């Protein structure tokens, strides 16, 4: 409701201010026939900017500070004698009841007189502050409008001003990308730092036992990264063993051997795999691939667990196939044709040309592509959550259940916001590890690929 009112007021303000600037500008033209620097739209936008910015600033200030002010006012409405008797939970309960009364929804059970009084007081306070803020915003907007209108003359460079504002807005949008990174680093580092106040970093990075005590209490349990790391690396290795040959060979076949028509059909079909959500792969691993591998194992006398590093790795490999194949395809297409012609001209067969000339020439780029694939495999979550078996134990066999960094993040952070104990904070330490590892891989891989591209440009 309030939001609608605010939106309505802002839209009206926008319309009026734009119209004012526009018509004043039109009048300039008709009145004295002077050549006007900017077209009426720019004067309209110029006025609109001057009207909207102050109004928005005031509204944003209220959004930022209003919550705290209202909170303090509400607390002040609770009689002193009752206030002292309330603990934190009790205070929160009382505040919720008062706010419910104030909003008019009503509360369950009998209401104490002081609750009703406080509710009424908060209701009128809310109304007054809301109306006050809105009026203030309108006044500020109006003042901006009037100022801008007074400045409109034929010589006003409204277009330049508007374009500068547009530029600043564009810059702000690109800053979002930077802010995201800053946000990621800041949140991971601060929360991980809190975690390291509980657990010695050495115990975390070199510990071999992963056994968080999720029940809480003074005994936090142990948080050794190594079992998770080994699981992650094992699954990643299996995934690469599946994805690299299949992906690379299919890229080679599609780009070097396949007739155009076959390529036009097969390439998008393989890339479908890249578009399938990972949760679907997880389900596929859990209900189909896992049981199949288990039965296959028992048929050849191998004990393979249905949820294991092997299951997760194989399915993750399938997921990465199109990633490897389209990146390698790209890279191989960048190798100049003349190199291939050179080999053909010497009488090399097509496979000799590919193996001896094309692949070595494309090698740096392909290595970059593989590193990107590795980084992706390390960060993949849903497949391992469903199919790796969630057994954070240091093991060498890929046939047994394992756990990974990402699985443990999901397990430890189930949406609780109560980041007070190491049980949940460890998620951020794991996330930081993951972020740093993948970041290094990505930077390195992108660097290699870039160098490779430059080489043939």
């Amino acid at each position: 409701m309030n939001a609608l009112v605010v939106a309505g007021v802002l839209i009206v303000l926008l319309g009026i201010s734009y119209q004012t600037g526009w018509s004043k500008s039109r009048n300039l033209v008709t009145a004295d026939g002077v050549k006007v620097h900017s077209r009426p739209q720019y004067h309209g936008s110029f006025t609109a900017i001057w009207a909207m910015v102050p109004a928005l600033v005031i509204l944003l200030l209220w959004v930022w500070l209003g919550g705290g002010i209202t909170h303090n006012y509400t607390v002040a409405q609770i009689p002193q004698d009752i206030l002292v008797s309330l603990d934190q939970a009790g205070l929160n309960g009382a505040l919720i009841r008062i706010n419910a009364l104030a909003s008019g929804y009503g509360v369950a059970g009998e209401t104490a007189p002081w609750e009703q009084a406080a509710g009424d007081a908060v209701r009128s306070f809310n109304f007054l502050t809301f109306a006050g803020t809105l009026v203030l915003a309108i006044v500020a907007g109006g003042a901006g409008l009037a100022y801008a209108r007074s400045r409109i003359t034929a010589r006003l460079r409204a277009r330049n001003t508007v374009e500068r504002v547009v530029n600043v807005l564009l810059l702000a949008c690109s800053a979002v990308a930077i802010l995201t990174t800053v946000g990621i680093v800041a949140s991971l580092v601060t929360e991980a730092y809190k975690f390291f106040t509980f657990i010695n970093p050495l115990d975390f990075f070199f510990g071999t036992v992963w056994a968080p005590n999720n029940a809480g209490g003074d005994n936090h349990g142990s948080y050794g990264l190594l079992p998770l790391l080994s699981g992650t690396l094992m699954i990643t290795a299996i995934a690469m063993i599946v994805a690299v040959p299949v992906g690379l060979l299919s890229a080679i076949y599609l780009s070097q051997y396949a007739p155009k028509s076959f390529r036009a059909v097969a390439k998008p079909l393989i890339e479908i795999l890249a578009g399938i959500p990972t949760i679907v792969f997880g389900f596929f691993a859990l209900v189909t691939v896992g049981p199949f591998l288990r039965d296959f194992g028992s048929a050849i006398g191998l004990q393979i667990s249905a949820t294991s590093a092997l299951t997760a790795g194989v399915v993750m490999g399938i997921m990465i196939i199109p990633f490897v194949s389209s990146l390698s395809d790209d890279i191989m297409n960048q190798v100049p044709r003349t190199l291939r012609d050179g080999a053909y001209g010497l009488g090399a067969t097509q496979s000799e040309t590919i193996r001896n000339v094309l692949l070595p020439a494309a090698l740096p780029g392909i290595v970059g592509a593989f590193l990107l694939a590795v980084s992706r495999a390390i960060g993949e979550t849903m497949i391992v959550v469903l199919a790796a078996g969630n057994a954070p134990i240091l093991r060498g066999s890929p046939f047994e259940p394992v756990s990974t960094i990402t699985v443990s993040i999901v397990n430890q952070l189930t949406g609780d916001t109560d980041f007070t104990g190491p049980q949940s904070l460890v998620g951020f330490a794991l996330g930081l590890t993951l972020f740093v590892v993948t970041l290094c891989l990505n930077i390195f891989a992108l660097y290699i690929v870039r160098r490779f591209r430059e080489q043939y440009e």
Partner: protein
Amino acid sequence: MDMLAGKVKKTSLNVDSAMNPTDVLERPIRLTARDVTVHYGTKQALHGISIDIPDRAVTAFIGPSGCGKSTFLRCINRMNDTIEGAKVGGTIKLDGEDIYAPALDVVELRARIGMVFQKPNPFPKSIYDNVAYGPRIHGLARNKADLDEIVVSSLRKAGLFEEVKDRLQEPGTGLSGGQQQRLCIARAIAVGPEVILMDEPCSALDPIATAVIEELIDELRENYTIVIVTHSMQQAARVSQRTAFFHLGNLIEQGPTEDIFTNPVNKQTQDYIMGRIG
């Protein structure tokens, strides 16, 4: 061995000098092409080319760009096979053997007909490995010593050995443009081809490097049948004994180089040589 003919040619690098035109025609014919056509998709790039190419002489194909001279050159070792949608008709025979016969192995053919390309294209490997690549894939060397010898002699023949003998293990891509092109020639020679096709081998090189390559071509003529496509009429006049003029996918005129340049029969040829087309 036809050393005498080679000696004679060496002194006759320009058109004005006396040279017996019947000299090369009397040689055995290595390649015969009859009514060769090439289609790229629906577009016809060559119209019924027929030509004979004599043994151990340089035959030059000239003509304005897009005239089909490179396309025809690529037919001779079936490089057009690697281009999707290219269709070749007619017959080309090497020593009487149809090179488009289904039974013919294109790998073997290309070992017999080597090729040097427009832009130097050394593999991103060492100089040694570049030259050794052909002998390796074809199994021409029984052991390392054999291979070493092939590499050294090929580099020598290509006139590059003295310049690179101390850095055979350095990458071939690190050489200068002219050196790279000579490396590519050495690479082609190392397989021991009978015919060498050169597709505008000097177009990416400076005049000095070009002169070195031209001299090299003249030397190679003693042992190899050479077909060279060139943009430059001066180059054709300098290095070739026979010249064929292509225009718009047709073979307009062919004959001994002197005849083509001094006394062209066809008006189009004359116009081209006079610099009016192209």
